């Protein structure tokens, strides 16, 4: 083992570019996703300002469509999914008592692909305009003929980000299957790990569908394929099927981890074990499975005929049952408990009723004959913001406050935290409750303006004010983070009287997570030790040197390569009015060069083995006292 000791450690920017430490990657995901959230939120604010008054001319029609498309796309793919990944990265290995994830390198690849894919999507603003065909990019509107160059950015940016997400998903599946500490059986796993496990499985099976969809759209737009050209025998409904075969599971990819977070927080702050744990696990898996069988509910007005509509309607409604199981189990976890309130538990408490309100409107939408009235109206906008913002974002904000000390070693300020909760909660309901009525009163979605004298003015105004209130809340959260960052790093290991393994190690977690892998003896492993009067986990192994993977710049270069190749493909048939640019793009030189960078990086990775390095026992002893 002579070669294993050369410790390569970078500092500063290089450290972040090369890191393969899942906790740092978690932080990177949080920063990346957070920035995109602010961007998507800003776009939401622009949308709402435009819709504040009838016939407002704050944004013109074309800009509005771009803002709308980018708001949806950014929020779904670049904001909330990465933030989910941030928590998965930061927490899952700790919850299952692992030193690392299964593929630290692939994990880093996943992050950089997401980030550069997202960047590619967003630089469209500075080139030929952002995509403008809605986040669903229905053809033929998304074909060259009817939409701008921006849709190319959508296609390639999402493709790259999607590959990253898929890589991340596989990483977590294998980590959870193979890397659990001794005694950490599946049925002892914390619920956040469980839901993330199912979410990863959904990613594995749903993302390939959108990969194909995006490939088709790319070939259609860039290489003159004809899948969607009616004159050539094409069919536009194909895109809708493929998009929603991915798209519906996607919404459960989003919500399941939030269910996990809520389960953790409710149980911790009620100081009770989760009520009906096995039912919760079962319900999660069932939701995941059913999630693949219901996508046609987005297509009730496409005209598939009553048989298809009815089948998918019933399948959709069935999802209410396992979801209800979860809701009632949370309530009964709190029943007989001692729920205490702080920012994290407030957001969790806000989640439950709000999500139920969004869920029940989902079931209403699932009735085709009624959906013919709701579809593509603000009723749908209200539904999905209730589940996504009132559900998922509440969950993520709860998780943020809950795990912040574990990720950063500092406690967020409670006063500002509570302020941000109340402004967000009130602002949210103000924005979206009224949108149900707007929809029922005849307001279609995706409209850049509405005429006066249609009875829609007041509610739109209220909705905008609510959105601004959410903006205030977001700023408060940012202030909170800034204030906290200036305080000393003094968070205790276990600030909330936690029940799961992540609270058994220091805050923030050391780079090797567990000095000694713990022995797990039951559900809520740490709590089990606590009630038996022990302060910490029993180790499952003697103290020894710990093997760590080496940092590497290759994940970054791989992704940069694809980023460049993306541009190359997009502009291969573009007329630059510039001989040099025309030559290098027109002959696929840029595209080829980008792909080459990626392939060479992959080759280097394959040929040179990573032997990693060891952290020796002496070093481990030292860090404890530090």
């Amino acid at each position, binding site marked *: 083992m002579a070669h294993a000791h050369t410790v390569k450690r970078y500092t500063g920017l290089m450290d972040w570019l090369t890191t393969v430490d899942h906790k740092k990657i978690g932080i990177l995901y949080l920063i990346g996703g957070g920035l995109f959230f602010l961007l998507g939120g800003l776009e939401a604010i622009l949308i709402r300002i435009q819709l504040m008054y009838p016939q407002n001319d704050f944004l013109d029609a074309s800009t509005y469509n771009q803002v709308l498309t980018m708001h949806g796309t950014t929020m779904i793919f670049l904001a909330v999914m990465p933030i989910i990944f941030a928590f998965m990265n930061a927490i899952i290995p700790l919850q299952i008592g692992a030193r690392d994830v299964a593929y630290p390198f692939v994990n880093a690849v996943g992050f950089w692909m997401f980030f550069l894919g997202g960047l590619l999507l967003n630089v469209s603003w500075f080139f030929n305009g952002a995509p403008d065909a809605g986040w669903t990019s229905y053809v033929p509107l998304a074909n060259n003929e009817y939409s701008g160059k921006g849709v190319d950015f959508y296609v390639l940016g999402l493709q790259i980000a999607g590959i990253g997400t898929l890589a991340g998903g596989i990483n977590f599946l294998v980590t959870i*299957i193979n890397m659990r500490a*001794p005694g*950490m059986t*599946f049925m002892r796993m914390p619920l956040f790990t469980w839901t993330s496990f199912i979410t990863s499985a959904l990613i594995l*099976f749903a993302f390939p569908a959108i990969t194909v969809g995006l490939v088709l759209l790319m070939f259609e737009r860039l290489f003159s394929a004809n899948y969607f050209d009616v004159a050539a025998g094409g069919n536009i*409904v194909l895109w809708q*099927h493929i998009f929603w*075969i991915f798209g519906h599971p996607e919404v459960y990819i989003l919500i399941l981890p939030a269910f996990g977070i809520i389960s953790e927080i409710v149980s911790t702050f009620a100081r009770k074990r989760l009520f009906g744990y096995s039912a919760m696990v079962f319900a999660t898996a069932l939701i995941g499975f059913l999630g693949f069988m219901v996508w046609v509910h987005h297509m009730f007005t496409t005209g*598939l005929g009553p048989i298809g509509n009815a089948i998918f309607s019933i399948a959709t409604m069935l999802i209410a049952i396992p979801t209800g199981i979860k809701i009632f189990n949370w309530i009964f976890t709190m029943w007989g408990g001692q729920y205490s309130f702080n920012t994290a538990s407030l957001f969790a408490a806000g989640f439950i009723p709000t999500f139920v309100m969004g869920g029940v409107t989902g079931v209403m939408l699932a009735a085709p004959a009624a959906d013919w009235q709701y579809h593509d109206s603000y009723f749908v906008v209200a539904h999905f913001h209730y589940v996504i913002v009132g559900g998922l974002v509440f969950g993520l904000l709860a998780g943020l406050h809950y795990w912040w000390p574990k990720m950063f070693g500092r406690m967020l300020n409670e006063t500002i935290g509570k302020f941000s909760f109340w402004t967000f909660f009130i602002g949210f309901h103000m924005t979206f409750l009224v949108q149900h009525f707007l929809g029922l009163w005849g307001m279609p979605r995706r409209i850049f303006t509405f005429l006066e004298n249609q009875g829609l003015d007041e509610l739109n105004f209220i909705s905008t004010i609510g959105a601004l209130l959410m903006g205030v809340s977001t700023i408060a959260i940012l202030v909170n983070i800034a204030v906290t960052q200036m305080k000393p790093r003094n968070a205790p290991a276990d600030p909330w009287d936690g029940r799961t393994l992540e609270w058994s190690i220091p805050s923030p977690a050391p780079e090797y997570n567990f000095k000694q892998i713990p022995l797990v003896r039951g559900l809520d492993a740490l709590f089990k030790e606590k009630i038996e009067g022990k302060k910490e986990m029993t180790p499952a192994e003697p103290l020894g040197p710990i093997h760590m993977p080496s940092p590497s710049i290759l994940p970054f270069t791989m992704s940069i390569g694809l980023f460049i190749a993306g541009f190359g493909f997009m502009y291969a048939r573009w007329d630059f009015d510039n001989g040099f640019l025309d030559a290098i793009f027109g002959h696929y030189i840029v595209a080829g060069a980008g792909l080459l960078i990626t392939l060479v990086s992959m080759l280097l990775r394959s040929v040179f083995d990573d032997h990693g390095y060891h952290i020796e026992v002496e070093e481990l002893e030292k860090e404890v006292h530090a």
Partner: protein
Amino acid sequence: MAANHHTHETNKPHRYEGPKNHLITFAVSILLTALAFFAVMANLGKTFTIMFIVLLAIVQAAFQLYVWMHAKDRGHTYAKIGIFMGGIIALTAVAAVVYWMWW
């Protein structure tokens, strides 16, 4: 299913396995392919032929999965779940597109 149990199962000492099963699978594959070929040539009616040759393909795929790719061996629970789920979802997609793309 305990974690240590799982690692255990993949660590089982391995008996050297001869080429017999693999050759049988090869022969089966050739046979099934030929059978499908003849079924098409024999004009047995559209629906029947399609169902029949798709069935043959599935049988052949199963053989290859189980023998050549070792899915029959221990420690392949998740492998099988993965492929099986993938297959179900792929089939759903195919069925939907075939039934609900044109009307």
